[in-house]
């Protein structure tokens, strides 16, 4: 290696310090929220004067919170399935297809990643107002699908580009029809890409708040929208508990991806 870490002397400690500060900068807000959710103070005092599980009990006792969490999960699950399916067929076209404008189309599919979400939200809101989709599960799913698809397409095209088409050709010559070869050989071989696509699609929908605020109605709210709305009405540590649960599920899914990648490599 160009830079030998062990021979850096004093620089080594400076680098370690910078790394530590960066990590703290990223992690402290999350730890802070988690700590508050277990704190006994109703006014979110830090450091907490005592420890309690009361706010979690309130969260699980309140049907409105549970309903919001259920809605979030339901919408995220539908978005995940559709995003992986659409991402898969789009990726086959983008990787295997031979047509003019392929690179342009690929760039177009990724624009929702760089487009300001609020612009997208306003546009979708105005459009859904005309066709009556605001405040419906369908509206939520379409809105979240728009932002989830780029992640799905990115993961699956990556996996498909790393997969040698000759392997699929070999399956075809072995007697499998082109569709059967794709189902029995290509899809299992790119399963890591499909899994990443599923997790990122789920997470994109699961903690998305801007589009969700525009799509929500008093009777249909996702967990982030419920947190946002509650935050504006009254400041209760139940918000901290809900946020912590949101984060825990996100971290759990990310860990699962990391573990699976490690498993694939070994």
């Amino acid at each position: 290696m160009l830079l030998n870490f062990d021979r850096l002397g004093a620089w080594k400690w400076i680098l370690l310090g910078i790394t530590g500060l960066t990590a703290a900068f990223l992690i402290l807000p999350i730890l802070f929220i988690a700590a508050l959710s277990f704190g006994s103070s109703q006014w979110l005092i830090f450091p907490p004067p005592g420890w309690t599980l009361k706010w979690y009990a309130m969260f699980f006792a309140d049907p409105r919170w549970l309903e919001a969490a259920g809605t979030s999960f339901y919408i995220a699950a539908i978005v995940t399935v559709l995003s992986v399916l659409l991402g898969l067929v789009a990726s086959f076209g983008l990787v295997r297809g031979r047509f003019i404008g392929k690179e342009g189309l690929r760039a177009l599919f990724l624009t929702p990643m760089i487009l300001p979400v609020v612009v997208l939200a306003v546009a979708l809101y105005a459009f859904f107002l005309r066709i009556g989709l605001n405040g419906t599960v369908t509206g939520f799913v379409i809105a979240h699908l728009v932002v989830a698809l780029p992640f799905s397409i990115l993961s699956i095209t990556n996996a498909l580009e790393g997969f040698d088409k000759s392997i699929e050709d070999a399956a075809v010559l072995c007697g499998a029809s082109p569709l059967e070869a794709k189902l029995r050989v290509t899809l299992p071989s790119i399963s890591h890409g499909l899994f990443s696509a599923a997790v990122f699609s789920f997470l994109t929908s699961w903690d998305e708040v801007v589009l969700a605020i525009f799509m929500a109605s008093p009777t249909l709210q996702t967990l982030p929208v419920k947190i946002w709305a509650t935050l504006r009405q009254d400041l209760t540590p139940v918000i901290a508990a809900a946020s912590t649960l949101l984060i825990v599920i996100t971290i759990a899914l990310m860990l699962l991806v990391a573990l699976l990648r490690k498993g694939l490599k070994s």
Partner: protein
Amino acid sequence: MTFLQIRGLRKDYGIVTAVRDVNLTVERGEFMTFLGPSGSGKSTTLYILAGFENPTVGDILLNGDSLIATPSHKRNIGMVFQRYTLFPHLSVGENIAFPLKVRRLPKAEIDAKVAKMLKLVRLEGFEDRKPAQMSGGQQQRVALARALAYDPPVLLMDEPLSALDKKLREEIQHEIRRIHQETEVTILYVTHDQEEALRLSDRIAVFSRGVIDQIGTGPELYANPATRFVAEFVGDSDFVDCRVLSAQNGRADIAIGSGLTIRGVPMHGRAAAGGAAALMLRPERLSLARGSVGQGSANLAATVTDITFLGSNIHVAAAAETGEALSVRLPFGHEAASSLSRGDTVSLGFDPASAHVFSA
């Protein structure tokens, strides 16, 4: 009836013609190699046989029936690819079983066949390994077992050994020969390596720029190349510019440089008297004598430029009077070679009947 027949095959990609006028018949059980440099059309021809490409013109007949309208997966043809194509998520045994499962054979039959194929490629005990745990040579042997598991009438091999190192390549060439003899399957083999082609094949089709220059056994191609390209591609050869004095009945009298005339050299291609041509000489067919031997009928005067000892052979590089580089291969201990040094004038002799003239 002919077993496999390729008739007037042509493939165009836009304005580029990849192959044209390919006519070929293959007998049952034959080992036929397509030899040629990259871009010569040999792989395109193989891919048309596999059904991955459709010919622009032409037909392929297997036992008299056209294959063109049959999709790849129904052709029942085996193929081993240049790259490793084992299914990465399946074990070795499951890979070999794949074509049999697709054909919905009973499990007992599949298990028996997988065991038989593993024995054929000498990989018994490897059935539970994953492809990633196998060496490149082992993976290609499994690929061979998978391609033969369903007893295809024809096995296509597209440079299957090009990713392996030389020693392993020779080892697997022996395996392929043995397996060909044991199974009596008809093999169409693509390679750019002349040594591999000569070692394996019953007959070789030499491809050059989209056409077959010549089809024949290794010795036929070596002794009687039809074109300068074949002469260059099969065996070592050097060329000396010459002029055709007269040509008839496939023999030509030629003149080299200012004074030397050589009579009765086998002639390929057409050249009018006075036309430019090239005389082909094989390094192992030249004799070497010290000094100049005067104006003999088939002796070229040359100056030694380099001498290389190669174990059983001594390789002498020389420059002909007319400037062309020539090489001579002599057995170790050859009398004239023992005291040879750079700059010496030597006389290179050859039998006109074993040389060839190609019109330029």
